């Protein structure tokens, strides 16, 4: 557990002198007795105490003797004071007896079901009953029981008879997550954790309560009765779901991942992670590709041996003679993205590569190339925590980067931080940050950003959605310069920042080197062992241009890797493009709707079956090791090496060490970067009454490809609703509870309407939730003009 660096005590330098167990020590004023004892190596037993939660002294387990006090005191809630003399159970019979007494009380109603309890083997109650308890209970009458388990949500279950009322879970929910959906109900002997009727514990952070529960009272539906802790092998990994870069503990048994926990990392995720990172790993077992497939002469896909599939892939690419492009999905590791970046240039002789399988623009590429890639002075979590002013642009922290949300909330609670959001409405998440919203229509963020007062040394956090708004990223950079404020780009997917650093963009080589820069090309060519002319000097096509070129017959082959067509900026055009080219190679973990179009389909390893690195939004490398080896699944880099070999090229990226060596050889680029973007904003044209501007973003838990196979988690999703302002609803004869249909020429989405306080002439709908799949149904993006009408049942 953390010895919190943000503890009030460590901020002040004032030291006091006190004695614990006869050892005199100096500690910062304000240090709790239990922490000071920990530092000198004495563990005082505890349940309710958690270094990241405020003291509460609820469980009474940590009683110690303090000279001058009439009775034992809880060491978790009392700071050491000058001259204080404390005796723990190590030197005091009084303390030892007090602890044993508390333990006896705690065990009165606690069942003896350790052999079937999930916590058994890693249970603080079990362990401390051994060290600080009586060997035998004097309680002989019947124990209290409850019907079990109580379903707090579809994911979180509660066995009330195991609970010791430490209130860690309720305090976490209120203090850290800001979601007090669970509370201590009833009183006295009946006291129990519970939810209100019909209001389940649907918090994005609910899984943390299972992890911090010091007994087996809270369990997850996903893991309940699945395994014993001592049968598990634990590996430190990095979460693959978003760009937060959470450190995780992946526990597996017999080559199957059983559960994932937050691995404490004070610099990044502290003690926490989100429910998506914790529970969404069912995709590892869902629709997995295990065998290469090739299309035979009859047009049918058949299983193939690796060497054959690789040879066919190589021949297909050679046939295309440079009329090739590489489309990536933003979820690759740094190493794999780098392999694609190198492969495109060295093996295919093209700069046609783009990792942005989402709305994007040339403006964004320039923004990334000039202000994000290779920026070693970017914002960190710590800086967010100490910031005075943070401005959010096209970014909804709780939904799009939940660990940033937690850190901002922590800063806000310390009383330092003012959050300003340029957004269409004050969301629940922003409310929890006490944020001030400047109500803004999508498309006008730039105008608003340059209009508001921004004090110097603010931090601007700009989300990936900004790419859909012309001119916004250009304005954001200007504002950041003018106000001496740092700006940080927050991508959603875990692999985006790494792919950017790896040069998986048409105008960038690895390390922020512009392809148009001759010395940049020659630096890279030298490391790659190819002639300077091998790397094309002209920037290639970006994702949208690749799609267009393919449809126009200008491309012959496509490599599509780690990508779901349903995430594409326009899934319909994407499908047309695939049909238009002669030769398609898909490389991926799961079978999806693209696989069947492939001439060659190659399976690769998911994160659990390889080592690699994600670069999080801070630019911080988050390397991780392989958890499961027995599948022998190959990395993307290894597969590309095999294809290159078949093309008679010395590619040299067989193993992770090769990749890391080469990346370090490339080093830091000190030359020119891409030009700063200077794009004009688009004026919003006047539009008709039944027209509105579309605002939309991903909800953290939705229908995303990597959340499949997790029914319990899916049960905690927010329900899909559309939001309108009262005025806009009235203009369209709509009221709360009506169905509203959003439509364009492509299709429509119909959702229940909720009227909230928000900017007029804008409709908000979820991006990829149940009944609301913006890309699939509308092919639209934020800022598009849509028609609305009353929906039919």
């Amino acid at each position, binding site marked *: 557990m953390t010895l919190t660096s943000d503890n009030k005590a460590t901020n002040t330098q004032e030291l006091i002198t006190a004695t614990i167990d006869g050892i005199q020590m100096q500690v910062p004023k304000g240090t709790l007795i239990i922490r000071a004892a920990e530092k000198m190596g004495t563990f005082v037993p505890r349940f309710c105490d958690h270094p990241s939660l405020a003291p509460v002294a609820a469980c009474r387990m940590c009683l110690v003797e303090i000279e*001058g006090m*009439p009775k034992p005191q809880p060491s978790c809630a009392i700071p050491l004071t000058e001259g204080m003399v404390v005796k723990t159970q190590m030197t005091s019979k009084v303390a030892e007896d007090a602890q044993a007494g508390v333990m006896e009380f705690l065990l009165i109603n606690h069942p003896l079901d350790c052999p079937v309890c999930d916590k058994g083997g890693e249970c603080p109650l079990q362990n401390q009953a051994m060290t600080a308890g009586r060997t035998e209970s004097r309680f002989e009458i019947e124990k209290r029981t409850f019907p079990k388990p109580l379903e707090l949500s579809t994911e979180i279950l509660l066995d009330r008879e195991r609970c010791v009322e430490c209130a860690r879970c309720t305090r976490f929910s209120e203090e850290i997550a800001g*979601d*007090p*959906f*669970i*509370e*201590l*109900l*009833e*009183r006295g002997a009946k006291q129990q954790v*519970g*939810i*209100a*009727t*019909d*209001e389940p514990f649907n918090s994005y952070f609910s899984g943390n309560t299972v992890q911090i529960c010091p007994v087996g009272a809270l369990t997850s539906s996903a893991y309940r009765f699945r395994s014993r802790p001592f049968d598990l092998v634990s590996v430190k990994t990095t979460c693959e779901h978003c760009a937060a870069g959470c450190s995780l503990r992946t526990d597996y048994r017999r080559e199957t991942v059983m559960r994932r926990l937050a691995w404490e990392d004070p610099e990044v995720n502290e003690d926490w992670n989100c429910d998506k990172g914790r529970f969404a790993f069912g995709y590892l077992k869902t629709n997995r590709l295990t065998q290469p497939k090739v299309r035979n002469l009859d047009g049918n896909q058949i299983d193939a041996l690796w060497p054959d599939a690789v040879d066919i892939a190589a021949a297909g690419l050679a046939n295309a003679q440079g009329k090739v492009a590489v489309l990536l999905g933003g979820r690759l590791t740094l190493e794999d993205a780098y392999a694609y970046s190198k492969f495109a240039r060295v093996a295919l002789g093209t700069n046609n590569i783009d990792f942005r399988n989402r709305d994007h623009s040339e403006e964004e590429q320039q923004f990334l190339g000039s202000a994000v890639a290779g920026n070693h002075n970017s914002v960190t979590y710590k800086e967010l925590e100490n910031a005075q002013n943070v401005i959010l642009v096209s970014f909804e922290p709780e939904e799009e980067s939940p660990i940033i949300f937690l850190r901002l909330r922590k800063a806000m609670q310390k009383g330092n931080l003012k959050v300003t959001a340029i957004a269409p409405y004050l969301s629940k998440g922003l409310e929890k940050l006490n944020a001030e919203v400047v109500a803004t229509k999508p498309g006008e963020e730039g105008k608003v950003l340059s209009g508001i007062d921004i004090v110097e040394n603010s931090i601007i956090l700009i989300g990936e959605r900004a790419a859909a708004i012309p001119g916004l990223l250009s304005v954001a950079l200007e504002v950041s310069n003018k106000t001496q404020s740092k700006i940080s780009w927050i991508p959603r997917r875990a692999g985006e920042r790494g792919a950017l650093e790896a040069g998986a963009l048409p105008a960038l080589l690895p390390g922020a080197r512009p392809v148009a820069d001759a010395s940049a090309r020659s630096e890279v060519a030298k490391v790659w062992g190819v002639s300077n002319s091998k790397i094309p000097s002209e920037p290639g096509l970006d994702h949208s241009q690749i799609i267009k070129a393919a449809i126009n017959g200008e491309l012959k082959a496509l490599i599509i890797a780690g990508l779901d067509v349903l995430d594409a900026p326009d899934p319909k055009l994407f499908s047309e493009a695939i049909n238009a080219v002669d030769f398609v190679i898909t490389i991926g973990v799961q079978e999806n709707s693209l696989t069947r179009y492939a001439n060659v389909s190659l399976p690769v390893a998911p994160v659990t079956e390889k080592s690699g690195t994600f670069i999080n939004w801070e630019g911080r490398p988050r390397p991780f090791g392989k958890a499961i080896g027995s599948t022998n699944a190959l990395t993307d880099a290894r597969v590309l090496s095999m294809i290159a070999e078949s093309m008679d090229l010395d590619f040299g990226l067989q193993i992770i060490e090769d990749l890391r060596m080469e990346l370090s050889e490339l080093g830091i680029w000190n030359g020119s970067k891409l030009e700063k973007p200077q794009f004009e904003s688009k004026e919003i044209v006047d539009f008709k009454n039944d027209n509105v501007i579309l605002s939309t973003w991903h909800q953290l838990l939705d229908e995303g490809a990597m959340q499949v196979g997790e029914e319990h988690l899916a049960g905690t999703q927010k329900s899909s609703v559309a939001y309108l302002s009262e005025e806009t609803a009235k203009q369209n004869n709509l009221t709360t509870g009506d169905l509203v249909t959003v439509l364009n020429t492509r299709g429509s989405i119909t959702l229940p309407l909720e009227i909230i306080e928000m900017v007029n002439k804008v409709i908000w709908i979820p991006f990829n939730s149940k009944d609301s799949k913006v890309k699939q149904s509308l092919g639209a993006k934020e800022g598009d003009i849509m028609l609305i009408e009353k929906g039919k049942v």
Partner: protein
Amino acid sequence: MSVKEITAEHIEELEVLAAKYPVRRSALLPMLHYVQSVQGMVSPKGIQTCATVLDLTPAEVAAVATFYTMFKRFPMGKHHIGVCINTLCALLGGDDLWKELTETLGIGHDETTSDSMFTIERIECQAACTVAPVMTVNWEFMDSMDPAKLKELIEKLKTGAPVQSTRGTLITSISDSERLLAGFNDGKVNDSPDADDSMLAGLRVAKERNMTAPIGKGVR
């Protein structure tokens, strides 16, 4: 018994209560009493409504509503009858009163008669031990009770004959009392005296004899 819906007018009155306090959530206890005056109980819907008005989560409101025994999560009858079962009252006849009450009405603690007239409860000390055994009807005092008086009281309440607290106040219904507890004045504040002679007897004697409280040894 169907539970009365909370309407827009009720929400307006809840807003009046919330506005009385510098921090709105301080109004939660009065608001729960108000909900109880409307619904005869605190229903999940009532919890939800308080949560919405105060911008709390329903769980936070439920934590409060379930902590205090005065808030009922089942529909109460028209009248709430309490019998003090703490030591002094019990010894002076409280236990007999409770036995009489349960036998007469055929129900137990925190239960309601099938005609929805009465809900009975074993209550804790009401700070009126000088007039033990003590009962309450709709939280108005019934001092120095005995089984015969109790029988008569029940009969009167059943037939709707006027009943007064032994201290004077006219007894109407638990709903009215809950509304008063919520902070809506019923204008009857002077109907009962603050204290009668028996309650002040001890003080009188102490003054006559110049008695003072002993000075404690003090705890460090």
